[in-house]
């Protein structure tokens, strides 16, 4: 009894418990669907069926098994998302730097950053494709725009949150602007910078998959629309759904891990809090 009580207080146990509940609900649903529908794998297949399709050795297009095909396409999607993410991060950081250094730049750019946040960039995907006429370019551009503004706004907030005392201390040391930024401003804005990255990493992935669906070729999105049209086993569709969910979640967690490695001082702070 006391073991159970202790377990119920543990955070991990409760998370796992909820995942188990979700799996049970899914399986009950799958059983009901299997009993009532003609093609249950379209609506809600058993999880075992999906896992089976992942490990199965049967080829679906002559040369590749389902999972090989999904992974190959995933690689293409992720690599393009990464390029866009990288460009967007760099641009966002540089803009934030300029905005904090030059008041005029901030005044001009900040309202537009707010507006970008409100307008649906992903909805503009087909148009950017029409302008660039190149699917990989448009994918990179959209991923970059989506990455750019959370990074810029959060990093700017980080620059602004630097304590005044630190700023004054550096000035009293007669530190140059360059030193001021490299020694105080940039290190202290890193946690904010990572907040931006955590928001934008899953968005970059979503953008990349979505742009894939606009044109044939290679990429998770293309495969998704082909599988939806019934060109191949429905299990490919489910593999893609789970894989893209996993990539989205993983990209978010990965940013947290990188932050953990890069910011030892933050780690210490957390321990003190506990």
């Amino acid at each position, binding site marked *: 009894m006391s073991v159970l009580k202790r377990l*119920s207080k543990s955070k991990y*146990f409760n998370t796992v418990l909820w995942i188990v509940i979700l799996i049970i609900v899914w399986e009950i649903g799958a059983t009901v669907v299997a009993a009532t529908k003609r093609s249950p794998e379209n609506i809600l297949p058993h999880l075992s069926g999906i896992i089976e399709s992942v490990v199965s050795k049967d080829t679906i297009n002559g040369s590749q098994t389902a999972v090989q095909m999904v992974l190959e396409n995933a690689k293409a999607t992720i690599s393009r998302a990464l390029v866009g993410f990288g460009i967007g991060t760099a641009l966002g950081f540089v803009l934030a730097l300029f905005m904090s250094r030059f008041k005029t730049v901030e005044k*001009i750019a900040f309202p537009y950053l707010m507006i970008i946040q409100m307008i*649906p960039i*992903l*909805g503009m995907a087909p148009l950017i494709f029409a302008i660039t006429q190149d699917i990989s370019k448009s994918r990179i551009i959209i991923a970059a725009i989506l990455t750019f503004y959370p990074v810029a706004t959060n990093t700017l907030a980080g620059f602004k949150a630097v304590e005044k005392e630190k700023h004054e201390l550096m000035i009293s040391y007669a530190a140059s602007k360059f030193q001021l930024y490299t020694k105080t401003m940039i290190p202290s804005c890193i946690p904010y910078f990572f907040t931006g990255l955590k928001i934008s990493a899953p968005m970059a992935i979503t953008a990349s998959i979505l742009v894939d669906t606009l044109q044939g070729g290679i990429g998770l999105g293309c495969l998704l629309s082909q599988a939806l049209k019934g060109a191949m086993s429905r299990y490919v569709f489910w593999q893609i*759904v789970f894989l*893209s*969910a996993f990539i989205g979640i993983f990209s978010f967690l990965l940013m947290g891990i990188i932050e953990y490695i890069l910011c030892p001082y933050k780690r210490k702070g957390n321990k003190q809090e506990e």
Partner: protein
Amino acid sequence: MSEKALKRKKIDFNSVSSVLYPVLFGILIFVLWECGVLNTVLKTDTNILPAPTRIAGIMSENSSKISENLSATMTVIIWGLIAGSFLGYMAAVFATRFPNFGKGALTVLSVFNAIPIVALAPVFNNWTKDVSSEASVRSTVAKILVVTVVCAASMSINAYRGLTELKPFSLDLMKSYAADNMTVFKKLRFHNSIPYIFTALKVSVPSSVITALVSEYFAEYRMGIGRQIRDNISIAQYSAGWAYIAVACLIGILMYIILIIFEGIFTKRHRK
């Protein structure tokens, strides 16, 4: 005295320039776009990137068709936003009431937030096949459900913080009054959570617009602003595509402004 006047002058200049600079920048872009300089820079013709006045003209020409699609999209956004925020708030209340068990649920919900919309939309399309025999109805339900999931996640996390991060000793005070859980919720937790509700909405309003547009891409029934953007561009009707994009941007901006106004009204009363 003169120092004060100088200070006021400085503030005046600051506030004037912070309006003037972005407006001037906007006008500059507008003029460049209208005169076709933007087309040269982006190496596109005026067919793909029409001038703003032409887009506005097309918007007014097709106003009846646009408003039909607009109302379809707005239905999805509004109902999804309401349902998602309500469910998210309920999840947060549940997690506050049963802290250990409920917090696990919040962790799982926050993970849902990272799932790409592109993966959710087709799944909900499949699940809503039996809702109605009308394709338009079941597509709308599927789209609303996707928006609901996206909004629920951000609301639950923020509302949970609002319900639990109370002022020190306020909970002890309520306990000393022998207040039951319901009273604590009504008198203390709910009021404390209001600013957090708006924080959540500031995230979920823009993302509900995006989600609605993207889930229209996958919907069975061809309706809505997002679908029109895509369909018009795929048949090379770029100006019409731009008109719908302009509408989509307007939805996003207007909804955000309405939200800010509501935030002003509701949090002012509670700040005291």
